């Protein structure tokens, strides 16, 4: 059995959970049952939307110690769930939250955890492809020893729209676990946003990202107008955020956000590995850069080797038609 652990926040399913479910379906190959686990306070809407997928059942897990997320709480709950269900594989999306608790869980139960997986490989044995050396290389990795084997799936590596739906909604059942609030060593406070109306780029359908090619802070308006014309969110490569020209939460890359929108327009971005790892999962990538040798063109679907200060206004005019 393959267990996929979904992630929700305030009654909304994390988009990356759908992608991890697609990975689970691919791993199952139509012959292995899949169950989806959902931890935390009741979200019947989330459970119901999951129940429309082609899986065996949805398992909800609530306990006094799971009212908010803590690594201690989730490790305890999942260890008990694994004892109840005996999965062969457990899949998670490689979100900040999964990074916070899955290694501790793997260490607690002494089982392998393979993180940031971009593809499944079935050669002589099952292996998992994951990036190494800032994306310069890909490693095919096998998980060794007894089950369960824990896997986190890189955001954007699998397409949520490849999800297989079931004919009728599957059953939703609640599992019983013991998580005593007194046993939790972390005491979290309520999450907050620093910037008013800060955007979650990982949920944006279209993104226009600006890089060093914009040259000066005053020129950002070109990128802003282009983003608006595309109906896209504005993002940036790291140097732009380090300069303070855009806030840190708009940063795409290995030390910022990883995104997989339908459309990603890279404006004046060279395509250094640290940036590519954050956006190469986008469905359609457009690269605009003066330098025809810029590495960004390696991952682009459409490339225009041109001066962005000439091309951007032309694009804006065309989009506004």
């Amino acid at each position, binding site marked *: 059995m393959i267990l996929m652990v979904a992630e929700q926040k305030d009654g909304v399913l994390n988009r990356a959970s759908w992608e991890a479910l697609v990975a689970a379906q691919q791993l199952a190959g139509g012959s292995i049952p899949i169950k989806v686990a959902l931890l935390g306070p009741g979200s019947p809407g989330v459970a119901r939307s999951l129940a429309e997928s082609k899986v065996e059942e949805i398992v909800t897990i609530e306990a006094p110690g799971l009212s908010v997320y803590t690594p201690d709480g989730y490790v305890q709950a999942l260890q008990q769930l694994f004892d109840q269900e005996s999965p062969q594989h457990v899949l998670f999306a490689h979100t900040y939250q999964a990074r916070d608790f899955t290694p501790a869980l793997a260490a607690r139960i002494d089982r392998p955890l393979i993180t940031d997986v971009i593809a499944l490989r079935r050669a002589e044995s099952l292996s998992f492809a994951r990036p190494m050396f800032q994306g310069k290389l890909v490693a095919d990795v096998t998980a*060794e020893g007894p089950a369960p084997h824990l896997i986190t799936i890189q955001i954007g590596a699998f397409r949520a729209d490849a999800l297989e739906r079931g004919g009728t909604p599957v059953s939703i059942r609640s599992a019983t676990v013991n998580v005593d609030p007194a046993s939790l060593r972390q005491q979290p406070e309520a999450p907050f946003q620093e910037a008013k109306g800060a955007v979650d780029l990982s949920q944006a359908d279209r993104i226009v990202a600006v890089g060093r090619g914009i040259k000066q802070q005053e020129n950002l308006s070109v990128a802003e107008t282009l983003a608006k014309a595309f109906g896209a969110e504005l993002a940036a490569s790291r140097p732009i955020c380090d300069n303070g020209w855009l806030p840190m939460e708009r940063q795409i890359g290995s030390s910022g956000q990883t995104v997989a929108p339908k*459309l990603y327009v890279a404006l004046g971005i060279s395509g250094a590995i640290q940036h590519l790892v954050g956006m190469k999962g986008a469905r359609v990538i457009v690269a605009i850069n003066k330098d025809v040798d810029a590495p960004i063109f390696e991952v682009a679907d459409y490339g225009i080797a041109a001066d962005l200060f000439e091309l951007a206004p032309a694009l804006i005019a065309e989009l506004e038609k």
Partner: protein
Amino acid sequence: MKIAVCIKQVPTREWQPRLNADHTWIREQDVPYEMNEPDAYALEESLRLREKHSGEVVVCSGGPARVQQVIREALARGADRALHVEADQLGAADAFTAAAAMAPAMAEERFDLILTGLQSDDQGHAQFGPVLAEKLGIPHSTIIMDVQIEGDRMRVKRELEGGWYQFARLPLPGLLTIQSGINQLRYATLKGIMAAKKKEIRKIAPPPLTAPRQKVVALHAPEKSKRTVMITGSSAEAARELVKRLREEARVL
């Protein structure tokens, strides 16, 4: 306060990968190395905490003899002394194996706080910190932007996705993985480099290494699955062509 900083030596950002003969690992000859950048931010944070609360900062690294390079760099930047769990196999070990190898020596030291980078730039598992915390029986938190010590507890600021943040409290001793960019890195001065030569690096043999729970069976270049369509012409022509293709071909507009 007794603070440990776990620092990894990794190939430099500029290094062009070369594979070994059977393509199961990199070719290790002539690889230039440096301190893992996320760990550099953890080191800087530890030095600031020592400045505020007094105590000592102990660099902890695992790997072959060559990792002395980053240990010395850390000592030159201001760490007080170092532990080097020396083993050739730790050079290529996965994060789980590495954390298990470091745990016994670090347990003995009874650190109040352990800091490390959120992940390493070579293998990038993002597991070392939480696994080490579990082995040591101490609580942890990850992707930390700020640390405030409050007596026998700490209040930390976690970065969440999409511009969200969260404060959390946890008791000491505890372990944190530090987000990059949290502070401004200091670099070694000549004075620091000279002083580092006299600082203690205690070498420790690792415990018997556990059988790894994951194995690299092949290492290769990423597949290029895309064929880039380069659009040429004047700005107006290229703009028209691109929008047309995005609408009709790619169907994203």
